C-alpha cells in the first residue's frame, strides 16, 4: 500500500495511510502514516462501531496536517475495544 501512496504523493496530492504492520511501513517509507496494532482486515475497527471508525478517520485527517517530517509514523493510542472512543477529541482546525 505504501508504494501506491508514494506514487500518489509524487503526483502532487497529499496522502495519509493507515498501517497495521509497522515493520512494512518503516521499510516502504510512505510520506505520512498513522499506525494501529489491530487485527488484519480491520484498519478502521469493528463492524458497527461508528465512534471507533470516526475516531480513526479524524486522527488520520489530523495527521495529514500535523505531520511535517516526510516518512513520519504516528502511533495512535487506541487500544482496540478497550478504548473509550466517546472522549476522543472532535474536529480541530485541519489547517495547512
Amino acid at each position, binding site marked *: 500500500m505504501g508504494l501506491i501512496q508514494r506514487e500518489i504523493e509524487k503526483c502532487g496530492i497529499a496522502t495519509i495511510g493507515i498501517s497495521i504492520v509497522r515493520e512494512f511501513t518503516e521499510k516502504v517509507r510512505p510520506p505520512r502514516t498513522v499506525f494501529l496494532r489491530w487485527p488484519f*482486515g480491520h484498519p478502521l475497527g469493528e463492524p458497527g462501531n461508528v465512534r471507533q471508525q470516526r475516531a480513526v478517520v479524524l486522527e488520520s485527517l489530523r495527521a495529514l496536517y500535523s505531520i511535517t517530517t516526510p516518512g513520519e509514523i504516528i502511533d495512535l493510542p487506541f487500544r482496540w475495544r478497550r478504548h473509550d472512543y466517546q472522549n476522543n477529541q472532535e474536529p480541530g482546525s485541519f489547517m495547512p
Partner: protein
Amino acid sequence: MTNRLKNRLIAKVITRFPNLAQRFITAYTPWESDEPVPWTRPARPLRECTLAVVTTAGVHHRGQAPFDMQDSDGDPSFRVIDGASIGSDYRITHDYYDHSDAEKDLNIILPLDRLRELQQQGVIGRLADRHYSFMGHIDGRHIRTLIAVTAKQVAERLCKDHVDLVLLTPA
C-alpha cells in the same frame, strides 16, 4: 484451488490470533527504496479540500472482474469504485485476510459513511465521487507493474478528478 483454501484458512487463523501473524510479517520482505520520501504539503484547509480513498482491501463492485487469486505474485490491477453505490453493491476478493467482518460493514476497510458524515458537518470540503481499490499482497514481478504502471494510473486519475487529499486503507 487447494492453495486458495489453504490461504483462506491461514488468513482466518492470523486474524483471530494476531500473535501468529508475526511469523508471516517476519517472513515477508517488503520492497525498499533508496529514493527520498515523496512530499506534497496540503495546500488548503480540510474544509476546502476534495478527499478520495484508495484501499488495498480487494473490494470491488459485483459486476466488476474479481482480482486474480491464482497468481502467487498477486494482482496489480485496480478497480474504480463508485462512492454512491458501493455500499449496497460490493464483493471482496482477497484470500490473504479474513473479510467476514468487512462483509458486515464496509466502513471498517472503506469508511465512506464516516467521511460522508464529516462532509455533511463541513469538516471535509467534498468527498470525491470515485475511489480506487487494489488487492494488496503484491509480490515478485508485479511490484514493478504496480509502481511503474497501475499506481501511476490511479495517481493520474485522482489528479483528473481534482482530488486534493487521499486516505489509504489496507487490509
